[in-house]
């Protein structure tokens, strides 16, 4: 059997192959990525499409959650002040209905309740980053403004609609209650009953004061009831935040396993590829120059 005398193409191919392995290993170590183009791992590349989209979404959902948390907390603390104010109004009303208070003291209480009314109106018009919180989806105009045509003395400018904000792929959290449900509900009209209380205190009729105080008390219990919604929203958002943090970790680790290198493995691969390449080059340098001519003594 005659042996292939021309080793050059073979040796060249071997060296190119080992050089290519060095290049690949070097590129992986340098970029930290195992997959840079789809052909490096088609399945991983396809999965990365979903991962890229999910990662961006989860980032945005996390921001949404934190924005919404602040907003819901603002609304909750506003309602907290309303509850305090109303509680105070109820005790002032009860004091006024006692019948033992003289006229000038009743006027002083009326002024105090008037102050409470002002502060409750201000709370009902709370805004967060330029958005009114209690106007339904009418977020750009103040929900409550003084109006002589309204029985309560205040007109509601908002609507009954609510907004739900995306905080997950299939998760929308309702983040507001319309003011009509909190402040001017049929079971308790906050502003109307407070206005009536002021009027009753000014007129000084103990029975009327007593009746109106009962109405304020009903409005108070309604606000307390409605306030539970914000507490629930807050805890929902908190648990979603925890979920999203976990999801971020999951997505990152999925990305790592899909396209990133195992550094120890990559370093080993690189040094193996280098060794193989050196060996191929050394062998080529040794074998190529050898022919019989090297060993023949030239004749005289």
């Amino acid at each position, binding site marked *: 059997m005659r042996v292939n*005398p021309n080793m050059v193409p073979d040796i060249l191919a071997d060296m190119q192959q080992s050089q290519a392995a060095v290049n690949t290993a070097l590129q992986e170590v340098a970029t930290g990525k195992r997959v840079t183009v789809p*052909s*490096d791992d088609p399945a991983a590349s396809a999965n990365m499409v979903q991962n890229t989209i999910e990662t961006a979404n989860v980032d945005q959902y996390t921001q949404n959650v934190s924005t919404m948390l602040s907003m819901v907390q603002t609304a909750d603390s506003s309602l907290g002040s309303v509850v305090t104010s109303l509680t105070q109004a109820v005790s002032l009303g009860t004091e006024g209905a006692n019948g033992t208070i003289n006229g000038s003291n009743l006027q002083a209480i009326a002024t105090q309740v008037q102050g409470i009314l002002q502060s409750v109106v201000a709370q009902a018009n709370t805004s967060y980053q330029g958005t009114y919180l209690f106007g339904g989806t009418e977020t750009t105009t103040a929900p409550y403004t003084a109006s002589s045509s309204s029985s309560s003395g205040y007109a509601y400018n908002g609507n009954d609609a609510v907004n739900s904000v995306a905080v997950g792929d299939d998760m929308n959290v309702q983040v507001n209650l319309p003011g009509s449900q909190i402040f001017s509900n049929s079971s308790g009209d906050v502003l109307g009953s407070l206005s009536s209380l002021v009027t009753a205190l000014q007129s000084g009729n103990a029975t009327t004061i007593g009746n109106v105080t009962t109405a304020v008390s009903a409005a108070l219990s309604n606000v307390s009831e409605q306030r539970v919604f914000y507490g629930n929203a807050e805890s929902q958002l908190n648990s979603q935040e925890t979920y999203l943090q976990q999801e971020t970790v999951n997505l990152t680790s999925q990305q790592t396993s899909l396209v990133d290198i195992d550094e120890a493995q990559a370093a080993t691969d690189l040094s193996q590829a280098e060794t193989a390449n050196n060996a191929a080059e050394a062998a080529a340098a040794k074998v190529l120059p050898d022919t019989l001519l090297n060993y023949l003594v030239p004749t005289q």
Partner: protein
Amino acid sequence: MPDLTAMGGLNTSLLIGLQALEVSQGALNVTSNNIANSNTPGYTREVPTISENPETLSGGIVTGGGVSLNGIQSVRDELLNLQIQQQTSAQSSADTQSSALAEIQTNFSTTGNDIASTFSAFSSSLAQLSASPSSAAAQESVISSGQNLAESFNTAANSLTTEQSAMNTQVTQTVAQINSLTQQIAQLNGQVSQLTAAGQDGGTVEDQRDQLVQQLSQLTGISVTQSSDGEVITTGNGTPLVMGSQSYSLQTTTGSDGMQHVLDSNGTDITSTLQGGQLGGSIQIRDQVIPGYLSQLNTLASQFASAFNAAQAKGFDSNGKAGQNFFSVPASAASAAAGIAVSITDPSQIAISSNGTAGSNGNVANLSAALTNALPSGQTPSQAYASLVFQVGNDTSNASTESTAIGQNLTQLTNQQSSVSGVSIDEETTNLIRYQTAYEAAARIVSTIQQLGTVTLDMGSSQSY
């Protein structure tokens, strides 16, 4: 061979010595030609065919008749050549496809401007809009990320079309190269059959022809058979390219699809039957692979645009009007991806509201759902795109794996061919020594006979010893 026996034994020896000198010279010529061509591509090593002359019977004694050089023979293995041609065609096709796909797939890698990245930016801009429906910045970002998404569709589609037309140009060029090669091969074929008819070895001419056939097999898949007129070369499908000394030119013409079609010498369209080689590879990419990708991209672009526009229509924009189309796509489905664009210009035209009030975000959920719900194709937009990415990646990786595998096969075959036909310097050096020694010995015979002749002639002279 003249009868020299009458002139006596010495003359016979002289003649044999002369023949030996000539044969050694001839063999040295072959050796030096082999060494000279040891690095010539396509060169097939030659060996001298040496045989002994018929013996002569003189006075009851049989004497050897010396030696003669019958010819010079190239050492080649036709079967190996055929296998090498086939593998060369297959590899060249895989290489063409692999390099075209490598260019294509860069548009589908995560670069920040690819569809996956722009789609995710669009998706998160909608999520942001959900939290801040009245924020001008959030609205603006939906418009601009929508434009980026449309542009990445445009870029991907355009780069596919560009690659397709590059392949189309390559088809025309390759056909021209094939025609030029088949003409040269036909000419050499004629010369080879003349030499063979005269009982000679084709040698150099055959080497040249084999080299050209090898080049031809890089351009397209061929089938080579031997006939009385020389080699017959056809395409893999049987369209004749060369028959003996006659070559048949292929032609190209622009087809109804705007692409170059390949016609045989009778004008029959053989485009779809061509396989292997650069030509087969280019046609495969141009007519099968790229149209496949483009059609998926177009379906995705047009179905996604209508789904998103339908979601727009469910809501109201910031002016309280019913949502109008967000994306516009060309009427022709074939250019949906290349022509998709954002058709609204003002952020106030995004249908954010579900009830017409500016602060409502009720329709944003519908807009976001258009990104995650299944399209009429049965897949969600991201699934549809992911499966396209998988396909591109898989095709690219297969083409390059195939090329590597065939390359190894080809290396083995070339090694085998080289072990039959390649020049070994060691072998030639050894032969050089053999022929040199034989030449020196033959020269010694001639000089010895000359001395003996002088002695014989001097026998009758006056000089005495």
